[in-house]
């Protein structure tokens, strides 16, 4: 059982708490001084950074949401000047404006070390050949893992996303031992292998680290059995750092959060009140070491719970449960986050269609598909074909551009979709009903 940075990952809890307090206080002093947004928020509540004397006081501070980040687009949340920023990334945006996140040289350094921790926890060593099938671009996934794998001394193949057959040929010829991808892409690879007549057993694959979307234990079992690998989950989000926030060790009993760099909290997503750690609720993260883009109490929107019991692997950090659901109505389609509100906004802007719509999400050939059913005004529905097709193309183009994923659009008669704006009616996620996770999700939706 390998551990990348034993002195921090296995730090006694008491020492860890002292370190967290020191870093929390210095982070608060810095954001209060350098970020207008936080200073204004703290002042409104009459809170000074020095009022925070333990991690328990953290819950007195206001929460930061995705829309706060959107409002301060592009550089409003930066705590250092742009001259000190050596890298910019962005998240897929909620309503057009994405969130820009920045990294100083030290931030990149931290990121590298944290992804090295995740990879080590997942079983990757310097002798491995690591194939990274996340897209290299504005999203954080590929770069973060890339640095960590290089730091470990592994051989990195930056194949980026797409071209599955080519990926498989590289996997075979370059003797890839480690696959880094989304879980659904891993299954797509297995299926394509079958079509190509390649036996996964003939490959050198040994381990896989998967992230970027929720996946069930059944899916893990399928990936492990069909690819003959050890599959672990890892979690992160661009607003906080990217990959490197938490990851599973090989005991697969929850994702270790690197508490020397982050403080996790669990809140009730509707009231915003803090819940005790074992309870299920929305994950809130405060960064402790980030220089360029520190986050105080950021609402991740992901539902999980925390387990402080020590793990067999020797790490002393808290573990979060695999994330299987969202606190809001965000959908993850091919690793890209999509909000129904985005669809609504696009439809509002297009003449001739009512903003009544339904999203149908499915998984065909292992890949997510998104179909939007749109009600159109009577005039257009019974109008000539040409006009109808134009409208259809228009909606399709606008939606795909806005959401960043390809979309299928179907025009439907007025009032054929229920008027309810509730999530159940607006979104039909058929992916869920395919897998065992449906059961978990279903029961979770009850409350």
């Amino acid at each position: 059982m390998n551990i990348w940075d034993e002195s921090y990952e296995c730090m006694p809890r008491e020492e860890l708490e002292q370190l967290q307090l020191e870093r929390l206080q210095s982070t608060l002093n810095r954001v209060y001084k350098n970020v207008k947004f936080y200073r204004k928020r703290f002042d409104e509540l009459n809170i000074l950074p020095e009022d925070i004397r333990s991690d328990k006081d953290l819950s007195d501070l206001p929460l930061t949401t995705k829309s706060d980040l959107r409002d301060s687009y592009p550089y409003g949340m930066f705590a250092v000047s742009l001259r000190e920023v050596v890298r910019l990334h962005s998240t897929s945006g909620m309503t057009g404006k994405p969130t820009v996140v920045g990294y100083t040289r030290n931030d990149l350094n931290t990121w590298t070390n944290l992804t090295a921790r995740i990879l080590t926890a997942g079983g990757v060593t310097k002798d491995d050949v690591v194939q990274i099938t996340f897209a290299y671009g504005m999203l954080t996934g590929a770069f973060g893992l890339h640095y960590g794998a290089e730091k470990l001394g592994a051989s990195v193949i930056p194949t980026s996303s797409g071209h599955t057959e080519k990926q498989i040929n590289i996997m075979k010829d370059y003797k890839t031992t480690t696959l880094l991808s989304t879980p659904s892409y891993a299954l797509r690879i297995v299926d394509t292998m079958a079509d190509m007549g390649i036996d996964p057993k003939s490959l050198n694959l040994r381990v896989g680290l998967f992230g970027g979307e929720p996946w069930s234990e059944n899916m893990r079992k399928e990936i492990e059995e069909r690819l003959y690998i050890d599959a672990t989950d890892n979690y992160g989000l661009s607003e906080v750092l990217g990959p490197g926030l938490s990851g599973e060790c090989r005991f697969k009993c929850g994702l270790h959060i690197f508490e020397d760099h982050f403080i996790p909290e669990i809140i009730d997503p509707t009231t915003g009140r803090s819940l005790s750690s074992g309870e299920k609720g929305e994950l809130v993260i405060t960064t402790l070491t980030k220089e360029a883009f520190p986050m105080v109490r950021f609402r991740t929107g992901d539902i999980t719970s925390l387990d402080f019991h020590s793990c067999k692997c020797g790490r002393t950090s808290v573990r979060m449960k695999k994330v299987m659901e969202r606190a809001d109505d965000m959908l993850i389609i091919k690793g890209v986050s999509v909000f129904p509100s985005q669809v609504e906004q696009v439809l509002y802007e297009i003449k001739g269609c009512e903003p009544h719509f339904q999203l149908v999400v499915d998984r065909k050939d292992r890949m997510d598909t998104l179909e939007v059913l749109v009600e159109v005004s009577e005039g257009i529905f019974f109008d000539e074909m040409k006009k109808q097709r134009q409208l259809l193309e228009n909606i399709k183009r606008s939606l795909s551009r806005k959401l960043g994923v390809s979309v299928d659009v179907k025009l439907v008669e007025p009032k054929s979709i229920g008027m309810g704006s509730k999530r159940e009616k607006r979104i039909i996620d058929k992916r869920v009903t395919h897998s065992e996770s449906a059961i978990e999700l279903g029961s979770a939706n009850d409350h």
Partner: protein
Amino acid sequence: MTHALKTYSLTLVHFRLFKLESLLIQALLYCTDVMLKLKNINTYYGKIQALKNVSIHVNDGEIVALIGANGAGKTTVLNSISGITPPDEGKALFRDTSILGLSPDKIVKMGISQVPEGRQIFAPLTVLTNLELGAYHRYRRKNRFSLKEDMDAIFSFFPILKDRKNQIAGTLSGGEQQMLAIGRALMSQPSLLLLDEPSMGLAPIICKDIFSMISNLRNEFSTTILIVEQNAKAALQIADRGYVMETGKVILEEESENLLNNKEVQRAYLGKEKREIWE
């Protein structure tokens, strides 16, 4: 265990054994835990709050640097630890025992010794007497032999002091006075040494010597060191970790290497990149 190690290392100094073994001691010291822990320290000078919620820790065997501009509160942190300006609020634990509210002499007896800013040696007295005064609190109880042993260790570490042992301390050069001040603090057999601006008023070349001596102190005397410095670069080069202070608050905690890389620290305290700041 640390005490045993200390005796062992002192013996080593006497027999002038190989460096390898002192490295071994260093390695052993590294695996022990927190020596000093401050939590939410608030210190006032009258009505003026000099320290606001300062939380820092020093691990056994570490060299930790406290850097920051003039008036940031660095010296006040040291004075709050040694009891010279006792904190009004907070927790201060030395090896899990609270030292809050104890008088400075009790704190020295527990193993914390401070080398004050501007050296503060007893100028009219001889070097030897200055050193003896450093062991004042144990002078009566322990026999002179043990004092002599310690003094010999100090003389072998700072040979120049041996040459000048009968000279009046006020006639020493700045660098020699700094060595004397450190030597005097070592006479109380501290496990934690607090150094306040050891480079102050010294020529750059002497500074370099003093810093290399300080980094050797940990090996030779197995002391843990908390150092306050305006010469941030020199301090960070010998330190394992550092804290950056600003107007009574800690604004950064990092490993020294990262602090040296931090552009803000570079600009503010290392005198690099003085171009105008982008807004």
